[in-house]
């Protein structure tokens, strides 16, 4: 018994060492099933999510500074307009300066999808898919199914109904979820690799139809879990994004395959 525990402990230590060597801590998320919040009649009710690794917290200003230092083309004054709108890193006083020292541990925001993707690639990682991020975000404080934890649901709904503060809190300040991941709710919105997935299915309709489906109140009748206000908010938010957007309360974190 003792031996088995020892083997387990050393395996954990080895895993932690691997994560630490790659930079910021990542957390293993076990395989599971994501039930899409909003789907058409031909969409799968359940999407299998393979086990993967996810950053324990969103990427910080300090981490992003390192990235732009090494990759000058992603500095604010040099970025191409195609890849980020003019909001890009506007909260930084300069190209290589994120301002006050307490900003170091705040999540980086005002980053476009392209910049987030480039950062992840530079780290040897990638952005999580929507299914992966939603699956991880579905966990509560004490179980993989947060919807069944009233305390968790209340905490989450409180955040989604409160406007973002001007100065964001530091990452990982809040309680980690069941998987050991911080800030999946309560800090910033996050980019996913496939944020631009379509919203209604069957066969496609015009864009105006998509918008109506999304924002009209009746849209939520197609939702798999009408009580899940937070999932609806995230869904609506993602669908309103364009890849070049760089805005105040939108950041990202990285994932990787196991």
């Amino acid at each position: 018994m003792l031996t088995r525990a020892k083997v387990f402990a050393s395996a954990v230590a080895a895993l932690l060492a691997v994560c630490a060597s790659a930079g910021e801590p990542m957390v293993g998320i076990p395989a599971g099933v994501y039930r899409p919040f909003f789907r058409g009649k031909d969409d799968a009710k359940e999407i299998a999510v393979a086990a993967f690794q996810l950053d324990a917290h969103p990427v910080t200003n300090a981490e992003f500074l390192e990235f732009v230092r090494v990759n000058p083309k992603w500095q604010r004054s040099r970025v191409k307009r195609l890849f980020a709108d003019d909001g890009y890193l506007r909260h930084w006083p300069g190209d290589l300066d994120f301002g006050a020292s307490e900003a170091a541990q705040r999540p980086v925001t005002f980053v476009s999808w392209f910049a987030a993707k480039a950062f992840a690639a530079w780290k040897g990682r990638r952005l999580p898919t929507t299914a992966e991020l939603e699956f991880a975000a579905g966990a509560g404080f004490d179980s993989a199914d947060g919807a069944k934890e009233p305390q968790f649901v209340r905490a989450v709904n409180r955040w989604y109904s409160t406007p973002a503060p001007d100065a964001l809190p530091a990452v990982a300040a809040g309680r980690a979820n069941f998987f050991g991941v911080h800030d999946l709710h309560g800090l910033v919105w996050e980019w996913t690799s496939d944020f631009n997935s379509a919203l209604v299915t069957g066969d496609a309709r015009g864009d105006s139809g998509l918008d109506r489906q999304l924002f009209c109140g009746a849209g939520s009748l197609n939702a798999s879990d009408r009580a899940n206000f937070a999932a609806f908010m995230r869904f609506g938010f993602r669908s309103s994004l364009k890849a070049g957007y760089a805005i105040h309360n939108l950041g990202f974190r990285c994932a990787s395959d196991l």
Partner: protein
Amino acid sequence: MKRALLFVLCVTAASAADKPAGKPPCCREALPAGHYTDRSLYQLDSKWTSDVGREVKLGVLRGRVQVLAMFFAQCEYACPILVNDMQRLEQSLPAAIRGRVEFLLVSFDTERDTPAALRAYREKMQLTPERWTLLRGGADDVRELAALLGVNFQKDARGQFAHSNLITVLNPEGEIIHQQTGLKGDTAATIAALEKTVAEHEKSSAREGQNRVPDKNP
């Protein structure tokens, strides 16, 4: 000798810019990167394969106006209409700009739309090789291009793709200058945008032409 002959050929091709040369648009040489404007889609480094099996970057399309849509060959409903919309557009182009506008289809279906499948689609839809380019690419590259165009798409459980129906006009620099949304959309506005960009391009190339050597990358 060979080089001289090639040069002659290039010059001939350049002077015949308004007449389709019988060569698919994707078979031209790309200009070196770094010359592209800040909003040019041609900055993308991704590689694509055409229905003639040629691997290209989008930059090869520089220099002509492109009418672009994303589609997939096995689409049952929307894409044939979308492609028909583009063909109607092609047919209704005013004579002055016909031959100066090219058409580009990029597939969502990274698995099934092989070059051969795209070739079959070209034949089925009777898309002229001189003006139409069909491309396929890797999943990440398709996702990125879609993101740039503002096209949303998702594969459903049957392997079909739900997607936005969007026709995009790129100017000769590869910048988005107009988008026609929905099926059977407003072609008049699109034609107006095409006429405007062709006219602007001619004006600027005429200006540049006075103090520049002939373009060796037609």
